[in-house]
């Protein structure tokens, strides 16, 4: 069966520090991968998605970037964190084998910027 791992679960960082959040998927190959940010009462905001290694689409201009160095690895990064980057970050995957497949989520990283 497929599993998705996200870490760390919680992170507290000072303003201006760098960020690296990692997500890996097991049990499937060539998945679509996604990064979301979830704010209370505002639903899920799509940040980045990737349909293959090195292929990244950005949805919202911001202080963050994403990379996919391996087929089942997705990384969210920042060179200098802002206070506004605080939030709950979720990684998700879906199958490319057939269209319209549902997404499956990791357990998220709660990021607090001080």
């Amino acid at each position, binding site marked *: 069966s497929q599993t998705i791992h996200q870490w760390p679960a919680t992170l507290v960082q000072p303003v201006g520090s760098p960020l690296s959040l990692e997500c890996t998927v097991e049990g499937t190959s060539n998945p679509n991968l996604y990064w979301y940010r979830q704010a209370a*009462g505002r639903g*899920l905001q799509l940040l980045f998605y990737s*349909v293959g290694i090195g292929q990244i689409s950005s949805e919202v201009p911001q202080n963050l970037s994403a990379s996919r160095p391996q087929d089942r690895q997705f990384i969210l990064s920042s060179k200098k964190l802002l206070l506004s980057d605080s939030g709950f970050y979720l990684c998700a995957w879906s199958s490319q084998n057939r269209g*319209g497949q*549902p*997404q499956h989520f990791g357990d*998220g990283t709660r990021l607090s910027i001080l």
Partner: protein
Amino acid sequence: QKEVEQDPGPLSVPEGAIVSLNCTYSNSAFQYFMWYRQYSRKGPELLMYTYSSGNKEDGRFTAQVDKSSKYISLFIRDSQPSDSATYLCAMMASGTYKYIFGTGTRLKVLA
């Protein structure tokens, strides 16, 4: 107007009640519909997945899609305190990579 509208709640019901959760949408191109359950400080968990119109049942959960009204529902029978969570609807058009989510309805089932 948002593409997907969902009442944020909270919705409080007694244990054993039938719960009805709903979403409306404006994009007639949506063909794939999902319901997720999200517990506090956890990622969303897929509950139901349906294609096009109709009903789908899985245990205590029933998902309904009415494309003519652009309206989807999730029914929970014999609700339990463990069903207390936020429920998110999501939908997707054919040929795209993007999922559009509702903001979620917070459900409380009281023992």
